[in-house]
């Protein structure tokens, strides 16, 4: 199981939990697992998209990026730039 940290305003859609445990080996598993547990997260996570920090590394599009059980996984608003 991987502990996934949600940003504060996302927690309202996940029973006010700061983090959620999901069974995940990849970033895709993380997002899928979160939406399965909390369907209200779907618009943010799957429709509009997010970035995922895995051990301090920003993953914006690499859904197959591997995650280990002791990885630090933090959801972030989707990173863009100018």
């Amino acid at each position, binding site marked *: 199981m991987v502990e996934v*940290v949600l*940003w*504060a*305003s*996302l927690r*309202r*859609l996940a029973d006010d939990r700061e983090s959620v445990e999901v069974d995940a080996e990849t970033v895709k598993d993380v997002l899928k697992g979160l939406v399965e547990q909390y369907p*209200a997260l779907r*618009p*943010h996570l799957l*429709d*509009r998209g997010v970035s995922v*920090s*895995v*051990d*301090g*590394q*920003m*993953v*914006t*599009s*690499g859904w197959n*990026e591997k995650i280990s059980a002791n990885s*630090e996984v*933090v*959801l*972030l*608003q989707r*990173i*863009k*730039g*100018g």
Partner: protein
Amino acid sequence: MALDDAFEAREFKVVGTRPIRPDGIDKVTGRARFGADASASGMLHGAILRSPHPHARITSIDTSRAESHPSVKAIVTRDDFAKELSGEDWNVLENVMAGERVLYDGHAVAAIAATSVLAAKEALALIDVVYDPLPFVTDVDEAMRPDAPVVREGVADESVPEGMNPNVVRYHENGHGDVDIGFAKADLVIEKTFKTEAAHQGYIEPHACLAQLGADGNGELWCCTQGHFVAARICARLLGIDASQLRVTASEIGGGFGGKTTVFIEPVALALSRKSNRPVKIVMSREEVFRATGPTSSASMDVKIGMRKDGRITAAEGEFRLQGGAFPNAPMEFAAMAAFAPYDLEHVRSKGWDVLCNRPKQAAYRAPGSPMGAFAVESVIDELCNKLGLDPIEVRIQNGSKEGSRAAFGPRFKRIGLIETLEAARAHPHYRAPLKPGQGRGLSCGFWFNHSGETSVTLSLSYDGTVSLAVGTPDIGGSRASMCQMAAEELGIPFDRVRTTIADTGSLGYNDVSHGSRVTYASGLATIKAARDTIQKCCARAAEEWGIDPEAVVWEDGCAKPSGHNAGDFEPMSLAEIAANMGDTGGPISGHFEATPTGAGVSFATHIVDAEVDRETGAAKVTRYTVVQDAGKAIHPSYVEGQFQGGAVQGIGWALNEEYVYGDDGRLQNAGFLDYRIPVASDLPFIDTVIVEVPNPGHPYGVRGVGETSICPPLAAIANAVSNAAGVRMTHLPMSPPRLLKAMQEAGIG
């Protein structure tokens, strides 16, 4: 992150040198072809009719008089674009061509293609539009009030609490700890409200394009853009055609800074071309650029910070309200996430609000959101240092984020270089130089995330041993030079043996936009990997020639060599020799790389600014400026310094003069460079630069993006310098002479 993407220390031969830029001669001789330089046989000229109202219902559009004009060949309105779009596609289309309502002064309503520019503009007056004006709002704070005119209903997403004005469309919050506990531990707490006005990227080249689209959906587009692959994708959706049927070529670009990451005129030119069956060219006027492209958001912010007498920050809290025009996605989350990133805080909370106003749809502008957030946070830190009698650099070093610090936005940082920039700033002569009477000094840190994105590169050998490198990220900051350097470094050949070309969308795999400071990182990584792929193929050719195992061949100094005595005794085979025989030894040799890399390293900067204030007129002038920034590894140091200086200069403009001014009628009052004043050379001191190199662990050479971080500290650093010079805290940017004079008068100074 794949292991072979990881940073590995090495000695460089080409990387880190300063070769002459490969696009320089074309640009200084006029040979470079920018957006407006394209033409085609039978070409028509497009012009766009724009709303004079900030908000109005379109009752009717009658094009019959314009259609009878002898030079007019096509007229398009919203009916000529795709139907049934949703989400951001709908937002982009609605911005490109209004539907039922116009939402800002300058909003496109209809467009004409005619045989000359003059005829097209003349015929615009023959389109009869009946408007029903509606109430409007252009200020972010006013737009949030319960009784404010509603820009658009039903835009808010699920993050917005119930009961707010429909203009509030997104909410974000991040942070950790308990700020109340933290504030209770502080010896001094300062809370202030700040505002920044909308600024334009100010690129010198207006948007321009040439489009050709047949009724069969097969088309070509030439345009100045930061991302032609994305332009193709968006245009195809807006026109209802297949993306692969539209080949897009990026012209040379005269500046973008984020403002050319989307489309404005391109879908209009394509629609006109489809209707007229002729190529159509559109070139925006400067007035159109101001009124109808995407400036940055304006912002209203509250920041509260608590500090102990010894300089330790005990808690920090911020609320960032950004308007992004009449459409969602003002970068309020980045303001909230980036504002406190330079500091390792136990208790921190940031909130962001995305607000609609009757203004043009904001577009990205270098590190969107971060400069405004930094202005508010770094101003309060400066005030705390002043009041507690603390050295601003020492306080920042004491509180600064480092490897392992938990960022205010969540993750723990990997290896970062903030402290190194602060130490370099402290050691710089500027920091200890005496100030003249009436001058003030300001300091600020800044942070940006940096981005990666989809990236494809192809590297091909020519028979003469020269190398052609095709990348898909338009060169907005010297990337052709840095790509040539990285390819040359890997291949072991001179810089001038490589030519980098920006390939069109039909010639290379998909590439994300040149944004997010991603190009030197992501296209550079792809170039290195494509070069290594090429080397592997070259080694295989040499192995076959020598009759040895490919694993027994190494690549050194531009040559394939046997890996040792046991591998055999053969003369090294150069890249040129292998290329000369490639047709007979297996065919053409090309290396490829396609990926979405994930190792973009974040970046920090520290700026020092001296300023002086004319107490009679309120005019502020920057007298000395030093930029210190972590580049990870500077591939071409001159370009890196140029990025540092460019960010500082744009920051000076934003801090001192640049501002979208709206009148009581909701119309933009200063849509031109005479009234919207960007800095010119005579306004500026020499911008000194210091490149700090703390390698990004996610890039083979340690590269971090540098294009955006340089605009994060200037607003705050300049505001701190001006405030310290004027003797009054400036909380509203730009600090134009009337605003600064008023602040001094209200404070009884001057």
